């Protein structure tokens, strides 16, 4: 019963870690995962969220075993 959390780029630096493992709580949503994993830091406005490699909104429901990722606007290409 756990969730794998990933931070990338400037958010990795903001949070001070690349990865965290959180216990899974029933009914959890993405923004709650951020709060738990970031020690209560405010989520920057333009933060992008993904569950299992697909973009989601911060109010998306998280399921046991999910990989939840947070990152800033992308700048590839």
């Amino acid at each position: 019963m756990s969730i794998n959390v990933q931070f990338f780029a400037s958010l990795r630096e903001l949070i001070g870690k690349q990865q965290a493992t959180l216990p899974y709580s029933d009914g959890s949503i993405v923004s709650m995962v951020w709060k738990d994993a970031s020690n209560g830091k405010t989520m920057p406005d333009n933060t992008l969220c993904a569950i299992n490699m697909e973009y989601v909104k911060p109010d998306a429901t998280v399921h046991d075993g999910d990989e939840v990722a947070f990152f800033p606007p992308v700048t590839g290409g």
Partner: protein
Amino acid sequence: MPAILLDKIFNPWDEIQRYQTEHLRGGQYGATASFTGTMRDFNIKETVTHMTLEHYPDMTQHYLDKLCKDCTEQFELDDCLIIHRFGDIRPGEPIVLTVAWSGHRAQAFDACRHMMEELKSNAPFWKKEVTDKGERWVHNDQHHNKE
């Protein structure tokens, strides 16, 4: 219709040629559109020695694979190819290549451009400039390469 993530310099023209030779038949496609994005040395303060391109390996691969697949269907392509660098990139080096092979030029052009626009908007890559004084993240409103 592969999407390839590479941590080394690549030659886009050799890659197109090689892919075509290995995967397409000579008289099959009538139209090939390609786009190559290269790191400029222009607009970059002199102290910037290179860029580091971070990505989210599984999601980036997943996103680009899906983009290739969707484009091939949507634009009825014979084939398509995306190559994207990650890691350290120096001025003058190619960052990204998109190629679309089609029977018709409109589809080839549209697909090639669509791949670039989607990729720039959504593919999980983040550029960081490395200078002799330190590092800084590139923002969307900065124009260090083809944008």
